[in-house]
């Protein structure tokens, strides 16, 4: 399989799993942030543990990709803006009942309102590019 087919297949698995486990349901995000229903907390914690163990298995197996390249997990720098950006994103998560990933699952499920969220996400990303142009962030 070529790279782009693999991305399409893995993306499809991601969207399918998000939809099947209910991460695309407004009520489960509402439930997570109000403490009414913590299903998604358990989903995320399970994903973190499975992801961590999977990376350990890859490392134990030699830490190589299928093409024999060294796997180097991408590090994300810790800056003062990390908490600020996290705080801004959290506002959006609560207002829209979706994160940048789950809104795509909502869209695939035919939730029309998710179109608004996706458009907002595109505008927000574009505004970030404008701000970096001016050196504001």
């Amino acid at each position, binding site marked *: 399989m070529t790279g782009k087919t693999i991305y399409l297949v893995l993306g499809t698995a991601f969207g399918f799993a998000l939809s099947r486990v209910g991460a695309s349901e407004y009520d489960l995000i509402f439930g997570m942030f109000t403490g009414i229903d913590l299903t998604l907390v358990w989903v995320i914690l399970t994903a973190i*543990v499975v992801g961590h163990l*999977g990376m350990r298995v890859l490392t134990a197996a030699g830490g190589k990709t299928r093409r024999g390249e060294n796997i180097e997990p991408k590090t994300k720098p810790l800056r003062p803006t990390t908490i600020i950006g996290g705080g801004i*994103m959290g506002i959006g998560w609560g207002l*829209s009942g979706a994160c940048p990933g789950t809104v795509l699952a909502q869209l*695939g499920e*035919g939730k029309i309102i998710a179109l608004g969220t996706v458009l907002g996400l595109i505008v927000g990303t574009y505004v*970030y590019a404008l701000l*970096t142009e001016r050196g504001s962030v």
Partner: protein
Amino acid sequence: MNGWYETLFVNPWPWWAGGLVIGLLVPLLYYFENVSLGVSTGYGSIIKAIFPGTRLKWFHSSTFADRWGWRVFFLGGMVLGAFISARLGGRPLFTGEMGLFTANVDWSLPLTALFFAVGGFFLGLGARIAGGCTSGHSIHGLATLQPSSLVATIGFLATGIISTYFVRVFLMGGLS
């Protein structure tokens, strides 16, 4: 009515099944293509794919060197995967509903979509400033034990709780 088809495609999966599939994407993306799981940067890829001639410097970094970068395919797959899920689950093709929000907030569809677009704006801007979203920071970043991802995740949760409280009290009339 609880055959394998219902279990897999109609009834919601238990939390551990969803977490298992989502978590496996972290090592699989490294094994196949040596990239880190993440969604929010992909919105930049979508902008670049639609407007390849943009002059903004940010769209000319190595991340967006390829007009049809991998993220476009990954994000497109996510929409497709959920579409397949909804079709196999026998759900309607389109719906104007959004759970408790549309059940409790008596707004027109355009006004509701506009409100959600404001939420989306915060998602897009915030994720870029933080350097990732739920998948890049909270799942990939925490799975690879990165301090910045813990900080970002604390930020997501703190204001997510506050903004959801706002929606619950001021828009849903204090729904309990």
